[in-house]
């Protein structure tokens, strides 16, 4: 089974790159020849990725959430899977390349660095950890997608304002739709992050003797959570709209990425397991 897992680990980045290529070709050419096949290809990629995650879990005896590179492959899957669901629900098919490229980044890093870890810290075998990590990852994929749609909103907004009617203008859905996609993704991200934070606050002090509320990752996640909270509330109250909300979403995403990178790679936190 280990050979199969290794093969899939090598194949997955290429599958994401090919899927991205098809989506990008379709976006650039604006033809309808790959309208359905690109979705099928994304489905196959996600199917193989889910098989990879399941076999890995069975073989190593724990879900792939025990270190940052395992988390990256789950994140790559979560981002593209969320996009896949969004594409099915909305039938908006032109934004795929901007989302799938994020999965490529996570999967390439994961595939090159991931190791075979069988023995894991006892604390990481808790069921609460599973819910905590799962909700945090889906929450992060939500805010990732929200930031991507926010970025696309800003690009289209600028093109229309400046009378530049190029690819972005011709291929992207309209501003209102992009704003909605960004906002709904942010709501999903925010809700799941709320769950992750709540579980974290209850469970972490018990699980980690060196737990600290001044932990950089906790502070980073809390800032992201507060920012999204302010943005969503202002939007719902009708005080903020469009640019302001999407800029906040992008800033939140950047802080989330920086906080993850700092805590995990610089080992500043009890939260880093690598």
């Amino acid at each position, binding site marked *: 089974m280990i050979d199969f897992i290794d093969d899939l680990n090598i194949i997955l980045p290429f599958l994401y790159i090919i899927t991205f290529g098809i989506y990008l070709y379709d976006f650039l050419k604006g033809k309808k020849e790959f309208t359905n096949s690109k979705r099928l290809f994304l489905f196959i990629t996600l199917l193989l990725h889910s098989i990879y995650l399941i076999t890995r879990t069975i073989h190593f005896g724990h879900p792939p959430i025990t270190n940052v590179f395992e988390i990256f492959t789950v994140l790559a899957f979560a981002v593209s899977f969320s996009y896949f669901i969004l594409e099915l629900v909305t039938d908006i098919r032109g934004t795929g390349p901007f989302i799938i490229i994020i999965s490529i980044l996570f999967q390439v890093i994961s595939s090159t660095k991931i190791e075979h870890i069988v023995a894991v810290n006892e604390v990481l075998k808790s069921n609460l950890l599973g819910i905590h990590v799962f909700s945090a990852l889906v929450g992060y994929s939500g805010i990732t997608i929200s930031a991507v749609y926010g970025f696309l909103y800003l690009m289209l907004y600028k093109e*229309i304002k400046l009378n530049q009617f190029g690819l972005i203008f011709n291929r992207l859905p309209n501003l209102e739709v992009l704003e909605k996609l960004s906002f709904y993704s942010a709501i999903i991200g925010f809700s799941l992050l709320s769950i992750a934070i709540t579980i974290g606050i209850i469970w972490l002090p018990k699980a980690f003797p060196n737990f600290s509320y001044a932990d950089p990752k906790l502070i980073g996640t809390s800032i992201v959570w507060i920012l999204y909270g302010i943005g969503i509330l202002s939007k719902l109250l009708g005080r903020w709209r469009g640019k302001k909300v999407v800029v906040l979403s992008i800033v939140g995403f950047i802080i989330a990425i920086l906080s993850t990178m700092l805590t995990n790679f610089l080992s500043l936190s009890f939260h880093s397991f690598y």
Partner: protein
Amino acid sequence: MNLLAVSINHRTAPVELREALYVGSAEVVNLINDAKGKLFSEGLILSTCNRTEIYGIPVNKNLSYFDIQNFITEKKSSHKINPEHFQSFLSREAVKHLFRVISGIDSLLIGDNQIFKQVKDSFQISEEMQFAGFLMKRLFDSATIVGKRAITETEISEGAVTVSYAAVQLIEKIFSTLNKKSALVIGAGETGETAAKHLKDRGIGAITITNRTIEKAENLALKLNAKIIPFSNLKDQLSEFDIVLSATSSPELIITKDDIHKAMKKRNFNPLVLMDIAVPRDIDPESKKIDYVFYHDIDSLNIIVEQNLAKRKAEIPKVEKIIEEELNNFFGWYNSLQAAPTIKSLRDYFESIRFEEVEKNKNKFSSGDLEKLDIITKRIINKILHHPTTELRKSAESGEETAESATRLGILRELFGIDNHRPGEEKRP
């Protein structure tokens, strides 16, 4: 095929001459009455703002293009129109021209899909007037296929190619659903009306019209089932609209940046689209600097129009390929009509020889053998004729080499001394 076509269009004649030869649907009926049986056995008269065309199968072999040109100019115009203002087509070229017209690639506005309906209507008149016979009906079916294929298989009619439609396309890049939006049209002239109609067609929630002359606004509002507001209330009520479309002939600005800013504050900075399609402009272009204000004038809309026209031009080769395919299908059918009488004559000729020889020699056979002789000789004739018959049909139905197919038929007729009527003559004066 002796189908003749004569056309005066935007490439051959200036607008005043095209106008002079424009034929309304009532006049088409009169013209058909005059042409039917005298000039053509069957035909079609098509007239739009950019072209007037006559297609027909002449009753007389000697009918020339000039006769058809004279027919229309004598009926319609006192203008000095000469033969250079016409294009003339025969047979395959005439069919091809009709296919080009219905697919929109011959239109002034490439890909204009209004022409499809106009051709359809013209055929309908011909049919109602019993001017569309066997050939014209088939031609209409083929033309319809070309028109539909051009629309569905290519992007020849995609994108806005008029300023007013480009305005709507742009609005749809900002708002997702127009049915919850309200639009204000300033000016009740032709441009404002066209743009308002486009908005209405796209399902805009509400349209309001305002104009300096209130009567004009009322007339347009009646046509479009729209509301009206007095011109003097324009600035106060500006904030109520999501889309403002201005097309007046005012020499100075009607709406300033300050007016827009005030309206935006009242709207709590909900997006506002300003389409200024007037020349000189009605709305201060500086308004575009305000957040969530999408200001566009005729120049920016023209960028979209030019882009879409270029895209449509790039689709022409695809449409031409469809036209070639359908031309081959049409002439395949037509040539099979030509081949059928020849095949029949050939079979009759062989059968007559067989019958004659059997009759001559029937005394040499017993009555039982005579029956066998009859069966055997018929089988021999069938076997001899099987290959040439199949080949003739195949060659005719392929439709690719009309001239070659005609030559084969001619040689065969000459070799076997068959000479009966063929549908259609190729040579015309």
